[in-house]
Structure formats: structure tokens, C-alpha cells
């Protein structure tokens, strides 16, 4: 059990308070006071969950996150999702349906479990690619066609995730393996 920093507690208080204000819409003293009491109750109930470490390299706050980079990442991600969405829609709607289902396996070199979580979620959120399994540092990704996994294999998306946490650039993906024919595993 480790203690939470005041930065982390303040951040969760502010975000929960913003959520309360958006939901209620009233800014008078009584409603805000009820909000403060509710937020304190929620934080008390969730304290044990937040101090529990699920991975050895878990972070208790977002102090390692580069905020300016995170805004750029969200916008870049929306662009990726929309372009890939139109690509997948084109594949499905074409009468010949040119799919080449592929399994891509690779090892990642990312600083924390949070970075791997962001990468896995981003891969699943992008149409055409789907994170099937994350085992430690090893990812298994299912891809609908050859163009879909280009962004991962060329190391573009993993590098963007790395830039969220660290300034230096390096190769993130190692031990890349592309499986196109059944029988290679199991």
C-alpha cells in the first residue's frame, strides 16, 4: 500500500467537481456544497482502489504525462480514426470485399503499464485493427487488411505514445512477426 500524492488527490477532486458542475448546471452555494460532500464521499470509497497497484510499474498520478503532447495526440487520434473508418467502410461495402485478415505480434519497449494501455486502446479504437491480447510487453493484434496494420508496423503510432511520456525517440517495436497463414500458432 502506498500513499497518494496531493497532486493526484487534487487532480481527481477537480475532475470530479467539473463532472458534478456539468451534470447539475447550478452554481449556487447549496448545490456546490452538496457536490463537495458527494465528491469527498466518492474519493473516500475509491481510496483503496486507487492506492492498490495492479502492475509493478503503475503510476499513481499523471505527472509523467506531457499535457501539450496529450492534446496533440487526441486530435491526431481523431484524424486517424476517421480516415481509417472510411477505409474500412469502403472495404465492407465493395462487392468483392478485399479483406486479408492478418495477426501481427510484436514486443513493445514502453516505459509503463499506462503507456501500453494507451497503445492497446488506440489500436482497438482505430478501425481495422483490434488488440486481441496483451501479455506483459507482448501484443497480439488482429488486422482486417494489409493497409490497416501499416501504421503499427511502421512504428508511427507506438512512437506517438512514447512521445506522450518521454522526449527522446527510439524504436518501440521489436520482434515483429506477421502471421497470414493458419497453423503457425496453436
Amino acid at each position: 500500500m502506498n500513499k497518494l500524492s496531493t497532486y493526484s488527490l487534487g487532480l481527481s477532486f477537480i475532475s470530479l467537481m467539473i463532472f458534478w458542475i456539468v451534470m447539475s448546471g447550478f452554481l449556487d452555494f447549496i448545490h456546490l456544497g452538496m457536490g463537495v460532500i458527494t465528491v469527498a464521499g466518492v474519493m473516500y470509497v475509491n481510496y483503496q482502489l486507487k492506492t492498490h497497484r495492479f502492475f509493478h510499474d503503475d503510476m499513481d498520478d499523471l505527472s509523467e504525462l506531457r499535457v501539450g503532447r496529450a492534446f496533440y495526440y487526441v486530435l491526431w487520434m481523431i484524424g486517424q480514426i476517421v480516415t481509417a473508418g472510411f477505409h474500412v467502410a469502403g472495404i465492407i461495402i465493395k462487392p468483392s470485399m478485399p479483406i486479408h485478415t492478418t495477426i501481427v505480434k510484436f514486443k513493445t519497449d514502453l516505459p509503463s503499464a499506462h503507456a501500453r494501455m494507451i497503445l492497446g486502446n488506440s489500436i482497438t479504437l482505430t478501425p481495422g485493427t483490434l488488440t486481441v491480447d496483451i501479455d506483459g510487453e507482448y501484443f497480439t493484434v488482429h488486422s482486417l487488411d494489409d493497409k490497416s496494420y501499416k501504421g503499427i508496423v511502421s512504428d508511427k503510432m507506438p512512437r506517438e505514445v512514447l512521445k506522450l511520456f518521454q522526449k527522446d525517440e527510439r524504436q518501440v517495436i521489436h520482434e515483429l512477426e506477421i502471421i497470414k497463414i493458419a497453423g503457425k500458432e496453436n
Partner: protein
Amino acid sequence: MTEIQHIISILFVVIGIFFMFVGSVGIIRLPDFYSRTHGISKSDTLGIIFVIVGLVIYEGFTQSSLKLLLIVLFIALSNPVGTHALARAALKSGLNPFFSDDEIKEEAKK
């Protein structure tokens, strides 16, 4: 001003409905579980997000549009987790993915 606002919001909602339609077509057309997961989760999420963004543009900057943006955020957070859980459960229970090269080989044998 409101005319342009209405036109843009209708455009977004129509694009969203198109993605939902494509997702439904994908469930029927795609060959196996994993590729069907692509069809349903991706096109549906993109569809819902486009529809809600269209509604936000229709609403303008009010409290309701902030709530709608929160819905977009929660869909974008929960959808990949659910999809990943389904695909992982399928892989762990031993369902093999379908590879299109296998089908080509089988046709060549015939």
C-alpha cells in the same frame, strides 16, 4: 447562421447513420468472429460519435452539449475495453482466426 448550423449537423448525423449501416452490413458479410468484431465495434462507435457530434453542433454551446460530449468521451473509453475483452475471451477459449490465404489455397486445390 442557424441555417448553416442545421446543415452541418444534418450532414454529421447522416454520416453517422451511414457508418452504422455499414457496420450492420459488415456483421452479415464478414467471414469470422474477429473480423465481425471489427465491423460491429468500429463502424458503430464511429457512427454514434458522428451522430452525437452532429447533435452537439445542433445544440450550440449549452449544458446539454457538454453532457453529450461526456457521452462521446465515455463511449470512446469503454468501447475498446469491451471489444478487447470479447476478442481476448474468444482467443483464450481456442477460437482460431480465419485467414483469407487459406481460402485461396483451398480453392486452388479444387
